[in-house]
C-alpha cells in the first residue's frame, strides 16, 4: 500500500503544477494589474512604477511564476493586497471558525442522511419513502440563500431562538453555530438523502440480501450489517471527496452569520480582487482535493476487501 501511496503522490505533482499554472495565468496575466487598486487615489506614475517594482510585478512573467512556485512550496504566500495581513496567518486564523461550523454540520448531516436513506430504503414505495423523496427534491430546489434569509429572520430575529450572527472560540461559540449548522444540514440533506437512497435501493435488491432474509436474519441486522457495509463505496466517495472542501467552510453561511472563517475571507478576497489570497486558497483547496482522492482510494480498500491497491 505504501508504494501505491507514494506513486499517487508522485502522480499528483503534475496536477498541482497545472493548478499553479492556471491560477497564475488567471490572476497574474489576465486578472488585471493590482497596482492601481493598491497605490491609492492620488498617486502618479512615479508611485505606480515604484509599487510595481516593490511587488516584483515589473519582472518578466516567468520570474513572477517562479516566485509564486517558491511561495507555495514554502507555504509563505506573502501578504494580502487588501488587508496587508500575512496570508498564511490569515488562513491559520480562518481555518478554526470554518471547521467549527463545517465539521459538525457535515458529520451530523451525513449521518442523518445515511440513517434517513436506510429507513427510506426499508419502507420503499410507502408514504414515508414518497414523502422523503418529495421533501428532498423540494429542499434541493430552494436556494441556500432563501434558507439563510428566512432562518435568520424568523428563527433568530423574530423568535429570538438563536443569535442573529457572530462567532466565539470554543464552547462559547456553540450558540452561534447552531442556526448556520442547521441550515447547512437542511441544505445538504436533500441531495444526500436522494443519493444515498439510490445507493441503498441498488444494494437492497441484491441476491445476498434476499439470502440473508431467507436465512432468517432480522431487517435491521440485514440493513445495518450487510446493506450499509456494501453500500459504503459510493458513500465514501461522496463523503471523503467533500472533506477537503470543509476547510473553506461555507461562503454564504459564513458571510451572513459573521463567522470569520475562510469562506467569508474568500468572498472578501474575491470582492476586493485580492489575488494573492485567492491564489493561496485555490492552491490549498487543490492540494487537499488531491490528498482527499488518495485517502478515498485507501478507504475503498479498507471498506471493501475486494478492492486491492496496486
Amino acid at each position, binding site marked *: 500500500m505504501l508504494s501505491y501511496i507514494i506513486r499517487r503522490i508522485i502522480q499528483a505533482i503534475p496536477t498541482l503544477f497545472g493548478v499553479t499554472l492556471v491560477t497564475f495565468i488567471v490572476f497574474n496575466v489576465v*486578472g*488585471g*494589474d*493590482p497596482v*492601481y*487598486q*493598491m497605490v*491609492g*487615489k*492620488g*498617486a*502618479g506614475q512615479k*508611485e*505606480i512604477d*515604484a*509599487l510595481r517594482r*516593490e511587488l516584483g510585478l515589473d519582472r518578466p512573467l516567468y520570474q513572477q511564476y517562479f516566485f509564486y512556485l517558491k511561495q507555495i512550496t514554502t507555504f509563505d504566500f506573502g*501578504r494580502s493586497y*487588501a*488587508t*496587508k*495581513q*500575512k496570508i498564511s496567518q490569515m488562513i491559520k*486564523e*480562518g481555518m478554526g*471558525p470554518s471547521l467549527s461550523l463545517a465539521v459538525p454540520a457535515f458529520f451530523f448531516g451525513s449521518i442523518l442522511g445515511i440513517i434517513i436513506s436506510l429507513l427510506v430504503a426499508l419502507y420503499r414505495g410507502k408514504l414515508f419513502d414518497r414523502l422523503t423523496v418529495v421533501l428532498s427534491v423540494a429542499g434541493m430546489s430552494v436556494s441556500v440563500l432563501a434558507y439563510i*434569509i428566512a432562518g*435568520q*429572520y424568523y428563527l*433568530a*430575529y423574530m*423568535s*429570538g*431562538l*438563536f*443569535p*442573529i*450572527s*457572530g*462567532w466565539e472560540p470554543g464552547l462559547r461559540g*456553540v*450558540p452561534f453555530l*447552531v442556526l448556520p449548522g442547521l441550515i447547512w444540514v437542511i441544505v445538504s440533506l436533500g441531495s444526500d438523502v436522494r443519493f444515498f437512497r439510490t445507493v441503498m435501493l441498488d444494494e437492497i435488491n441484491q441476491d445476498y440480501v434476499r439470502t440473508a432474509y431467507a436465512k432468517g436474519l*432480522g431487517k*435491521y*441486522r440485514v440493513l445495518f450489517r450487510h446493506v450499509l457495509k456494501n453500500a459504503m463505496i459510493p458513500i465514501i466517495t461522496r463523503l471523503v471527496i467533500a472533506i477537503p472542501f470543509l476547510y473553506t467552510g461555507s461562503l454564504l453561511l459564513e*458571510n*451572513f*452569520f*459573521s*463567522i*470569520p*472563517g475562510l469562506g*467569508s*475571507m474568500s*468572498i*472578501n478576497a474575491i470582492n*476586493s*480582487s485580492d*489575488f494573492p489570497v485567492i491564489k493561496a486558497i485555490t492552491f490549498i483547496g487543490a492540494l487537499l482535493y488531491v490528498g482527499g482522492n488518495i485517502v478515498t482510494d485507501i478507504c475503498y480498500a479498507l471498506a471493501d476487501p475486494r478492492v486491492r491497491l496496486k
Partner: protein
Amino acid sequence: MNSGILRYSTYSIIIGLIIAILSIGCSQRGKSLGNVYRYPMVTRVKGFDPALGDDIYSHISIKQVYETLLQYHHLKRPYELVPLLAESMPTISEDGLTYTFTLKKGVYFQDDPCFKGEKREFVAEDLIYSIKRVADIKTKSTGWWIFDGRIRGLDEFRKESQESETTDYTRTVEGLQAPDKYTFVLTLTQPCSQMLYFFTMSYTSVVPKEAVDHYGEEFLNHPVGTGPYKLSEWRKGLRLVFTKNPEYRKEHYPSEGSEEDKEAGLLDDAGKELPFIDTLIFNVYVESQPQWLNFMQGNIEVTGIPKDNYNQAINPDKSLKNELADKEINLNINPSLDVTYTFFNMEDKTLGSNVHLRRAFCYAWDIDKNIKLMFNDRAIPAHSPVPPGLVGYDPDFVNPYQKFDPALAKKELEKAGFPGGKRLPTFEYLSNDNTTARQWSEKFVKEMGDVGIKITVTSVTWPEFLNRIKNKKFQIAGMAWSADYPDPENFMQLLYGPNEAPGTNNANYKNATYDKLYEELLKTTDDEQKSLIIKKMKDIFAEDCPWIPGVHRLAFGLSYSWVKNRKYNDISPGNFKYLRIDIDKRNELLKGK
C-alpha cells in the same frame, strides 16, 4: 439493533436538540449592557498602520488609537479646524510657506512593550518621523500624494529611500524642523491652502519609531498611539474591541456650537472630560441583512439603511416609519461630500473632439429616473463637481446639459454630424463587473439607444477597470469621488489637465483656462475669491461636457435615542470620544424587546 433502541435514540436526539435550542434562546435574552458602544463595519479593516489608512473603516479604527495635529470641530459646520495634538492653530508666515506648530506638552503614548517599561512622551521629532515614514518608499504608503512636491527636501528624502537598501531617518529634511521638543516647523515649496487639512488625515497620525522598529512588518497589528482608546481585542473579520486609554490626557467636550446644536442637546456635555464611553466594539457585517436585523434587535447602536430595507424604514416623504420611531430610533439625513459621474475619455478621437456629441449623451441620460432606481431617491442631481456643504456650491447654479431631454439630445446629435445616429460608431462603456454596475450599464445602453447612440458594455474586474482607465484604454466609464478634505479644490482637481491618467483626472480633460483658474484656486485662501474662481470653472466644465454629471448622495442613518452627542461628520467619521450612552435608557428599552 432492534427497533426499540432506534426509536428511543431518535426521540432522545430530538428532545436534546429542542432543549439545547431553547436554552440558547433564553441565554440571549435579558442581558444588561455597561458603558459600551457597538458600531457596525461592512468590511475587514486593513490594519492600524496610519501610512496605509486610505479607506474609511481603517481611518475610523486608526483614529481611536492615534491622533493628528489638528481635527475638525465636532459641532461646527461648515467644517472648522481645531487643534488636537497641537497646542493651538499654527502661525503661518506671510509668504504662506512656513507653518509653526506649538505642540501640547505632557502627551504620552500608550504603554507598550516597545517602550521597555518607560513612559514615552510625544515630541516634535515623532511628527517628523511619521511624515518621513509616509515619504519612505519602502512603507508603500498610499498617502504620499498629500506631500508630493510640497515640502522642502522631502522629495529628495523619498528618492534616496528608493535608492538605498535601508532608509536613513536621521537624514535632515529642510522642510521638517524641530527647534525644540514642542515646536514643529514645516516649510513648503510653494503656498498650499489645503495643507492644514492634511494634518487631520490618518496619514499624518503620530507613530512612535520604537513601535515601528519593534514590531517591524507586524506594526499594522500593534497600534501604539496617544489616542483616547487602546485596541484590546481584534478578531479579524469579526470584531475589534477598544477600551478607554487610562493615560489619556485631559481633553474636553466642545463648548461652542450653533443654536440648533444646543436645541438638539449637543451642548449638554460641554466642558466635560473625554471620552465618555469605556468600551467600543466594532462588529463586522459583510452582508446587510445581519446588520439590519442586529440593529432592529438593539445589538448595535447605529446603522445605515440597506437598499432592500429602505421602504421598510422610510416613508415616501422621507420621514421615519412609525414602527421605528416607536422604538426610539432617530433618522439622520445628511448630504455626503461626494459626486458620481460618467466620464468620456477626452483623448478618444470621436468623443474628445465633438462637444455636441458629448452634449447629446448628457441630454439622453435620465438623471431623475437614475436617482429613483439606483439611489432610492437618496441623492440630488449634480450640476458641477462641487457638492453641497462646500465653498463654491451654489444651489441656483444650473448646468444646462444636466437635463433629460431626448429631443434636444437628437438635435445635438445632428449638430455633431450624426443625424439619427447615422454613421456614428458604437461606443464602449467600461463597467465594473458587480450587480449594481451591470444594472447601471443596462440603463445607460437603453437610454442612449433611444436617441440613436449605440453602446456596447464591457464588464471587467475592478483591477482591470482601473488598469484600463489609468492607461486611457476606454471610451466611457463611471466613477464616484468622496472628499478627502472640505475644500472644493479636492473636486475641481478631478479635471485639472496635469492630473490626467494615471492621476485623478480620469477624463483626461485639458482646458488651459480651467487649469489656470485651478492654479489660482490653489493659492487662494479667501472664500469669496474661491467662489468666484469656482463659478468660472463650473461654466467651462458645463460647456465642455467632459462628464455626464451624476449625483451628490444623501447619507441616511439610523441611531437609537440612547446615543448622545452624535453629529454627522462626512470628512472624518468615527468621533466616538464625544459620544455618550444613556445606559439606563438602553437597558430599559432593550428589556422590552
